[in-house]
């Protein structure tokens, strides 16, 4: 449907001429004398109480705590089972295990395959899902109450009888790796990960999944995790909807038949230590045009009574379009599209953070402002209007977030597992309404320590480091969190050195050949690529022709010296009918040329004439050099690359992360699984593990695109 929103701008209302009054009857509806139409918004009426449906509890013989939120308003049923087995229980080196186990619970069990599970629940118009948060692993099934047998049956299959089929394990691992890599190309996600690690260190909340940790997870690990942590004793089952306690008990007991035991003790959460003084961790993301800034402090546990006051402070600071951060950083200074703050909601000690994404040239100002605004909450009482607005917004939205049985069940489960008192959900609004300005200042003073903030900035270190160093000491790291060698800003060359080393190119391995590949979109043929390599006495030439449906086609000609150094790159093509071209010449440590490309903001023309470090490879030539690199199980290369389409230098890292047997139209091959990062998206290459090294499959991480070798 076509919808509309008005644009916000400063109001200048022009009163228009009054409507000509039609002969209107003012006979009132049978009621006392009607009041005038108010000329200002009417004030709030008294808050009406949140009356929860009756909640009945029981403990099942196997130790599960059953809560039934009975509501016969609609014939719906929602079951939500939760275990204290969230991400905080991940073992060191196998981070991601909890999440992967959760995902697999609904992928087959109790005699049904994964497809059969989803067809069974979809066939009745219901849903099923499972996942983890920092504290909790949960499984939920939703549907109509007439399908209660199926709903409980599927729940039981998931938690008591999961199959953990090897095929599903492999698929889950691939999907998790994909999601992880995509996430790792998102600067906000990188920032949050580095922040958590800096705040919590080796404590459970500080750990996060990496491709290595996920690759290391085996089916046995999953079985072990399941056996140790997904056990009935102490687990919480919240059932909400059209059902009573007796029926829920009967169905739960039947679903959990044979499933017994207590989980192993979960790891202690520990208490994070606040930094002694403000330090800026700068995560280098070369050629980033924006800085993602995150400022924060350790704060309270979810059960801390000061959490209510901190929540109000958070709303005033950065809770929406009328909060301070948005108003100042966006509306007044135009430094960003948005700036917000948040208070984390975890069982252990959480944090209070503020974030902004700002252009490079104002990143330092934005950080200073962020720090100042957080500090202002400690030192300056909040105005009566802001205070009232913040409380009203929180208390106002609360019932809207608890309207359905399903929402209520999730909120109750969350509260219980965070160690909150039994009346938390019912009394929340009143407690927020009771927060005083003094309580807010006191809570903020306990959290916001002046000159001792934890700051993480994700951006281009070569541009930002010196500017940020004026605010606080700066420590530069790579997106993995490892210390980076200081990048020397040089014209056209950016990028942090990585632990990998530049490879030796053996040009004798580049033999005359023609490779044809198909490009698949969501598994269906969508385009093609033909690459031909020819040798002559004094040069090597590669010609590649790519066609992507009717949307894009291009032909690239690259010439190399007999040693494999790039000499020239010429590319001609079109993107959606718009012509594109690249011309680049490499000589004497410099690259010179021009490019016309089509991107998100339209057509872009650039020229470049700049130095490049020794061994620089044109971005378009990297694939052609693959056969000439020294591949092995532990190979890890750092390749200086120049991208003529953007006119910037980068560092690509190519790292072997494992081996895999891959089947493509050209045949079945044993391959090295190579992850290439440093470009716009990470890319997976599958390279034959025996010489001649050919790329048999290429898959950028994220889009459902694959290039497979045909012959």
């Amino acid at each position: 449907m076509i919808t509309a929103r008005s644009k916000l701008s400063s109001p200048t209302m022009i009163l228009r001429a009054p409507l000509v009054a039609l002969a209107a009857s003012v006979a009132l509806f049978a009621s006392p004398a009607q009041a005038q139409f108010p000329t200002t918004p009417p004030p709030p009426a008294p808050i009406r109480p949140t009356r929860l449906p009756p909640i009945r509890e029981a403990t099942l013989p196997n130790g599960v705590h059953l809560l039934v939120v009975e509501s016969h308003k609609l014939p719906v049923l929602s079951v939500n089972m939760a275990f204290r087995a969230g991400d905080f229980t991940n073992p060191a080196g196998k981070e991601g295990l909890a999440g992967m186990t959760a995902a697999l619970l609904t992928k087959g069990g109790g005699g049904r395959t994964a497809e059969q599970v989803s067809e069974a629940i979809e066939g009745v118009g219901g849903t099923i899902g499972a996942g983890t948060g920092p504290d909790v692993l949960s499984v939920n099934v939703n549907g109509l109450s007439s399908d209660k047998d199926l709903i409980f049956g599927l729940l039981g299959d998931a938690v008591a009888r999961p199959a953990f089929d090897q095929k599903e394990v492999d698929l889950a691992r691939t999907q998790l790796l994909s999601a992880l890599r995509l996430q790792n190309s998102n600067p906000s996600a990188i920032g949050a990960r580095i922040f958590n690690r800096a705040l919590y260190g080796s404590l459970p909340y500080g750990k996060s999944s990496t491709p290595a940790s996920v690759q290391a997870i085996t089916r046995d690990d999953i079985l072990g995790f399941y056996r140790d942590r997904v056990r009935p004793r102490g687990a919480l089952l919240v059932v909400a909807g059209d059902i009573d306690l007796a029926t829920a008990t009967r169905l739960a007991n039947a679903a959990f038949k044979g499933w017994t035991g207590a989980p192993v003790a979960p790891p202690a959460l520990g208490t994070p230590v606040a930094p002694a003084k403000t330090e800026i961790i700068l995560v280098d993301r070369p050629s980033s045009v924006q800085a993602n800034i995150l400022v924060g402090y350790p704060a309270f546990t979810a059960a801390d009574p000061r959490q209510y006051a901190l929540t109000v402070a958070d709303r005033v600071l950065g809770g929406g379009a009328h909060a301070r951060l948005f108003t100042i950083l966006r509306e007044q200074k135009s430094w960003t599209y948005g700036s917000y703050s948040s208070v984390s909601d975890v069982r252990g000690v959480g944090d209070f953070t503020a974030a902004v994404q700002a252009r490079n040239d104002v990143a330092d100002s934005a950080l200073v402002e962020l720090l100042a605004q957080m500090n202002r909450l400690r030192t300056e009482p909040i105005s009566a209007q802001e205070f009232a607005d913040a409380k009203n917004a929180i208390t106002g939205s609360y019932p809207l977030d608890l309207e359905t049985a399903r929402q209520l069940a999730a909120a109750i489960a969350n509260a219980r597992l965070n160690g909150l008192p039994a009346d938390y959900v019912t009394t929340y609004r009143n407690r927020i309404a009771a927060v005083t300005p003094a309580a807010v200042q006191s809570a903020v003073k306990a959290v916001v320590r002046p000159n001792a903030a934890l700051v993480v900035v994700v951006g281009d270190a070569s541009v930002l480091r010196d500017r940020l160093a004026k605010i606080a000491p700066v420590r530069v790291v790579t997106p993995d969190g490892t210390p980076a060698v200081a990048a020397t800003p040089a014209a056209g060359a950016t990028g942090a050195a990585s632990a990998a080393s530049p490879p030796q190119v053996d040009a004798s391995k580049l033999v005359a050949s023609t490779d044809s590949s198909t490009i698949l979109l969501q598994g269906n043929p969508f385009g093609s690529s033909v690459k031909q390599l020819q040798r002559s006495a004094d040069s090597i030439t590669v010609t590649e022709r790519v066609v992507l449906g009717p949307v894009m086609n291009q032909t690239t000609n690259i010439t190399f010296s007999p040693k494999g150094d790039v000499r020239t790159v010429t590319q001609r093509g079109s993107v959606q009918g718009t012509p594109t071209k690249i011309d680049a010449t490499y000589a004497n440590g410099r690259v010179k040329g021009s490019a016309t490309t089509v991107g998100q903001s339209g057509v872009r023309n650039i020229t470049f004439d700049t130095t490049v470090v020794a061994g620089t490879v044109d971005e378009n030539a990297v694939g052609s050099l693959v056969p000439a690199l020294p591949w092995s199980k532990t190979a890890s290369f750092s390749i200086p690359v120049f991208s003529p389409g953007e006119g910037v230098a980068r560092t690509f890292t190519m790292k072997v992360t494992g081996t895999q047997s891959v089947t493509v139209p050209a045949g079945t091959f044993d391959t090295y699984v190579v992850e290439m990062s440093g470009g716009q998206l990470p890319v997976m290459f599958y390279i034959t593990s025996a010489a001649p090294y050919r790329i048999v499959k290429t898959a950028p991480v994220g889009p459902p695109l694959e290039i497979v070798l045909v012959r």
Partner: protein
Amino acid sequence: MAISPLACSAFPVVRRSLAVIAVAAALAAPLAAQKPAPIAFDSYTLPNGLKVILAEDHTAPVVAIDVTYNVGSRNEQPGRTGFAHLFEHMMFEGSAHVKKGEHMGLLETAGSSAFNGSTIEDRTNYYEPLPSNRLNLGLWLEADRMRSLDITDEKFHNQREAVKEERRLRVDNQPYTKVIFEEGYKAIDSATCWPYSHSIIGSMADLDAAKTSDVQQFFHTYYAPNNATLVITGDFQPADAKKLVAQYFGDIPRAAPPPIPQCTPSFDAGARRERIADAKATLPAVMKYYTIPSYDSPDYPALELLATIVGRGQSSRLNRALAREQKVALQTQVFVDPFGPRRGPGPFVFLSVANNGVSIDTLDARLTDQIAQLAANGVSDEELTKAKNIWRAQAINERSRAMSLAQAIQRANLFLGSPDRLDSDFDRYAAVSAADIKRVASTYLRPSNSYTFIDAAEAAK
């Protein structure tokens, strides 16, 4: 050609044989048992013509307000298309006692974030969910803009630009939307049914030619209490709510009854075809439009269920056949009335995106084949039961929140004639048989009733 309405039996009362009764019982009884409790409505009309429908529910301390004006793109005149939608933008620009931008600010501070408005062919609605102690705020805001919307040259020009920008983003910048938002309307015969044969977003030329006085005239004609319905759901006390409604809306003067759009539906206009040049179409698509009757037609439930069976999800008929088995389509979607229900003829749409290397004419032929098979053979009982289950779950879930319930009530009231039809809809859909599905497929999904659009980057392919 008039399609004669076919009687839609509710519970088949069959006395022929036990087997038939057993089958009928097996199919009908479990479905009948799964209806939610009927809603108690309190409906009345103010002296100025504003219809008010109240549906009380004290489960959660929330309320929802939906004001629907009986005006949409179907009310526009040739040369003045796009007005209804432009109007929706204007309604957020401020009124006598609400500054521009203040409407959204007041709602957000009250805790509401899921407020909005929307325009379709038949109506324009404005809605906001709120905590129940802010019912007064929501009603006051709706009343202020109904009585005193501030229409100035500046605001009109600004919103005209906003509409053009919206058009660029939604219609011009994505593949296939050009057909869905605009070209697809050609399937309806403009000679006999002009109101439903033009797009909601309208022609930019018409908007450019419009003057502020035209916009003011549109407001006075259509944005009047006698042309609107106010629905309030949730946690309110009827006496208080009625008092507020009377106080805020009671003295807004009524306008003359607006003209009723004229439309004579026509079907089977002959197979038509057109190639649309769409630079954004990464892959070409074939879009087949079939004309079907209005939302209140006895055939409508069968058509809606048919769309679910053939096109919804990976395991739907067409995705299995054309994508997985024959590999000619990347994916296929099937939908009815993309923007919302209508009181006139509308489209039943197949949208199938081709795999590269597959000629679009081949895909069109395969799709046409699949559609012909539907008409000839119908669907299985299993497929029908699954589609009914999905429909029923949606119909029940839309009642779980005050806001979605309010919108559902407006839908039943406007398109089916009364809010009570929301409850009786369960029987209407439960009663659809496999024979009904086959019948509507063969009646409406025939080549003579089709308009095929080939949507491709290079039109001359």
